[in-house]
């Protein structure tokens, strides 16, 4: 399982990367592997205010549809619209080209609740 140390993780299998007050969010390598071939991605609308742990995007694989949750509260500032035409990028490059959306963080204290790679790995391995 590829889990970059520099990222933060949510128990619902999103990764986050903080840069100033902008949080970039995607799904983990574990999540893409469990989902299998991703065929459709529904992204949030830029400008939307989202609250922590609310469902803001959908990833559909051949097998199933899966909600993607906002790791913290904030405003959606950017989405990776390239995924609309190439949803399989989530499988091939979940941490770089496969990023899903960016949030301007409003609930900074919520960042403390996100997990380290090691803690997330325990959750993922427990299934």
């Amino acid at each position, binding site marked *: 399982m590829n889990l970059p140390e520099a990222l933060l993780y949510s128990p619902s299998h999103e990764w986050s990367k903080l840069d100033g007050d902008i949080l970039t969010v995607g799904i983990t390598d574990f999540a893409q592997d469990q989902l*299998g*071939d991703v*065929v*459709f991605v*529904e992204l949030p609308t830029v400008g939307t205010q989202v609250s922590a742990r609310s469902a803001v995007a*959908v990833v*559909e694989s*051949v*097998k199933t*549809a899966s909600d993607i949750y906002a790791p913290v509260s904030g405003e959606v500032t950017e989405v990776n619209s390239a995924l*609309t035409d190439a949803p*399989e990028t989530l*499988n091939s490059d979940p941490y770089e080209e496969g990023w899903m959306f960016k949030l301007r963080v409003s609930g900074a204290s919520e960042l403390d609740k996100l997990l380290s790679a090691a803690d997330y790995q325990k959750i993922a391995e427990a299934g």
Partner: protein
Amino acid sequence: MKRTSLFDQHLAAGARMVAFAGWEMPIQYASGIHQEHLAVRESAGLFDVSHMGEIEVTGPGALSFLRFATLNDPALLGPGRGQYSMLPNDRGGLIDDLYVYHTTPEDFLPDDYLVVCNASNREAVASHLTRLARDFDADVRDVSDDFGLLALQGPGAALLLGRVTDADVGGLKKNRTLAGTLLGCEVTFARTGYTGEDGFEIFCHPEDAPALWRTLTAAGAVPCGLGARDTLRLEAGFPLFGHELTPETNPRCTDFAWVVKDKPFYGREAIWSRTCTRQLVGLRLLQRGVARQGYRVLAPAAGEDELGDKIGEVTSGTISPLTRDGIAMAWIRKAYSEPGTEVAVEVRAQPLSAVVVKPPFY
């Protein structure tokens, strides 16, 4: 949970195993469903379908019995031929869909007919046939455990298979069988399949299946799992029992009405007398999204922010790996079933535009 004789080959090929109809089967291998799907459309893929049920029907009355029990007409089958068929219940619906083969003395298949059914319905099919056969001079026996079954599918299947067997597989016509050997193993080739492509199903002794699998994959066949089997059959517009076909669905209200031949058969009154208020159709989504089993099909909305009336339900859906459109099959009201009719599919509370099409979807 049961395992086919190819279990170790699946693990060696990086399979992800799932529970399916009481069997532990590969849903996909390492490269994923998309790559497997394309391999079958472009070259050749290899499926383990050993879990499917095989039922022997033998005796002087075998033909008249099967003419009564099944919807297609096995009287049309000379030895060495097979036909798609269905097993009706007495309420105007189905117990399963089938392949019926008229076997030959040369092949190692049982005399006189071999019925291949879905793994999930093996017991139901065997017990139903056994019960009906009491009135005929015919014997029914579940011989599923005696056979391994491989499906080699794709435009490259004949060439690939011809390189590893002396049998004239290239000259074998669709829906016919041929006895032969592969690596010295006794097999029967059938030019049949469930993918929409040319291909073969290869009956073998279960203990021979691993060597055949290794040889065919070494010759270039791509291992394919149940995931690709489903996207391939759906893209081809083939029904799957439990989705499009059920104990409540009348096959005369589908594109497979040709299967139902005008002859006496079990449950005929219920199937024949009913008029179709619903029809099984193909849908192509005009907006991005994935229609899935159970999603509602709606009439076009009268205005914005409105939902049309429910006119039916999706039975299977996916994104076509070839065209990348959302595709689905659905039972909908007859009045909306003409190809070209615009409807909507409700995907997570959003009505997505769709059009009725006649499959295949590619």
